[in-house]
């Protein structure tokens, strides 16, 4: 499958501080790739390098098999969309006026504005000025702007951080639809459940280095202990493992109607992150 992003031994220094060190990963066409890490781990710096907003210190970075610095050209900017924590919207203009500006810059038909507004569930509010919008609504307008030109590659920096559950679900459905149409998505998030729901693969970034990379299921298998917890009717909890001894115990509890609940002890991505790095994802 075609490689959309290829990063090899990427290094980025800011003065004397190293923001990224020996970061390597590839993303194939049609993948949703999650870049997970706490604040200051280098997620946004990586996006800035990939979108040619920042120069790298060392390493190789290519998008669509072209060096990242070529992403500055008008033609290549049509190929990706970006949502960052800074909305960059004109606050005196309405939602529609903001999107019409960008539809003109991308040279799209006006229907693209309606489609983008439907995508983020904001068509009815299109005449509202941006300075009257809540943080969540601004996030949705920024997302509409990022996907309006149906990019091949979408960079999303904390896309649902300010959204309520209903709109978060709406955005998830829309992103899946975009992905089904072939859009590759590079997503950074703190939200482990978001990564589990959306991502085909994730990378854990900590202090500028990638600590683990793989699909959520792979990582859970690798770092999980494969035990079950049995909650008994007397309120007692027992942890059991694969094997004849624990199978007999479970059989006996079930025979005597002593089992209230059984659940797996599969770790969350957050648990795995803590296990690998020794720190929380804040």
């Amino acid at each position, binding site marked *: 499958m075609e490689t959309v992003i290829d990063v090899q031994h990427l290094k980025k220094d800011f003065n004397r501080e190293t923001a990224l060190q020996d970061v390597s990963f590839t993303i194939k066409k049609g993948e949703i790739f999650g870049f997970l890490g706490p604040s200051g781990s280098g997620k946004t710096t990586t996006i*800035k390098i990939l*979108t040619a*907003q*920042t*120069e790298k210190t060392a390493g190789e970075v290519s998008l669509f098999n072209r060096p990242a610095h070529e992403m500055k*050209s*008008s*033609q290549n*900017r*049509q190929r990706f969309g*970006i949502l960052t924590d*800074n*909305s*960059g*919207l*004109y*606050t*005196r*203009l309405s939602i529609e*006026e903001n999107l019409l*500006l*960008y539809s*003109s*810059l*991308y*040279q799209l038909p006006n229907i693209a504005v309606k489609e983008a507004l439907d995508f983020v569930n904001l068509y009815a509010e299109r005449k509202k000025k941006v300075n009257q919008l809540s943080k969540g609504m601004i996030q949705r307008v920024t997302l509409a*702007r990022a996907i309006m030109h149906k990019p091949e590659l979408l960079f999303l920096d904390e896309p649902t951080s300010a959204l309520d559950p209903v709109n978060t679900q709406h955005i998830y459905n829309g992103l899946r639809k975009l992905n089904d149409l072939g859009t590759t998505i590079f997503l950074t998030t703190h939200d482990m459940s978001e990564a589990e729901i959306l991502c085909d693969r994730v990378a854990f970034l900590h202090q500028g280095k990638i600590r683990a990379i793989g699909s959520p299921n792979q990582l859970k298998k690798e770092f999980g202990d494969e035990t079950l917890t049995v909650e008994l009717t007397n309120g007692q909890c027992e942890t059991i493992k694969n094997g004849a001894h624990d199978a007999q115990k479970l059989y006996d509890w079930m025979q005597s109607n002593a089992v209230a609940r059984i659940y797996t002890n599969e770790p969350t991505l957050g648990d795995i992150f803590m296990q690998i790095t020794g720190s929380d994802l804040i």
Partner: protein
Amino acid sequence: MNISIARIQAIFMKDYKEFSRNYAVSVMIFLPLILAFAYNKMGTNDIDAYFLPINLVFAVVTAYVQCCLIAEEKEKNTLRSLMLSPASLGDILIGKSLFVFIVTIVIVSLSIFLVGYEPANLFILAIALLLSSVFYIALGTLCGLFAKTIMEASIIVLPVMFIFSFGPFALTFASVYPVLDIAKWLPSAQLILLADALEGNYSSMDYIVPILTIIAWSAVAWLATGLIYKKRMVD
């Protein structure tokens, strides 16, 4: 450089809408008009007085407005978003400058009319005024690129406005302090020298030198603007 008329037009229209709703900045266009009207009522009829409101247009409309528009784009991160769109450096700079250029032409024309100035050679003067607009737009853009916020922009642009608008007054003291004679090479002073020459018997050198001087200022200012833009907008 990739230039697109459609993108320039989109940025121009956006600036028009933003400017018309930004009363703190848009109110500045009335200042030179009021001054021109007041000078006319005072019965002023010398070139220096005619050019006070005209040079004020370049300072408070052209340089100041352009500086604020650029600084606000930086403060609100909208410039970064524009740069991530297919709009090229040329589209952005031309689109943003075109709006201020048109406003400048309109306000300079109104100021000339209100102050009661009837130039002897409108064609040559118009060329010099257009070139001056190009220079002051570059100056405003440059100041806007240095500023991080609109507040900072308002402060940065002040000395620039003072030097270029009121610089020609320094020539009054040049006989006492010869070093001030350097002020005659300011584009605002060259504009006055050119207008003064046009009122009498002038040779071609009387207008070629001021026009070339203003072109040189513009070229240097735009070159610096391009370099600073590229440097400031990449982390």
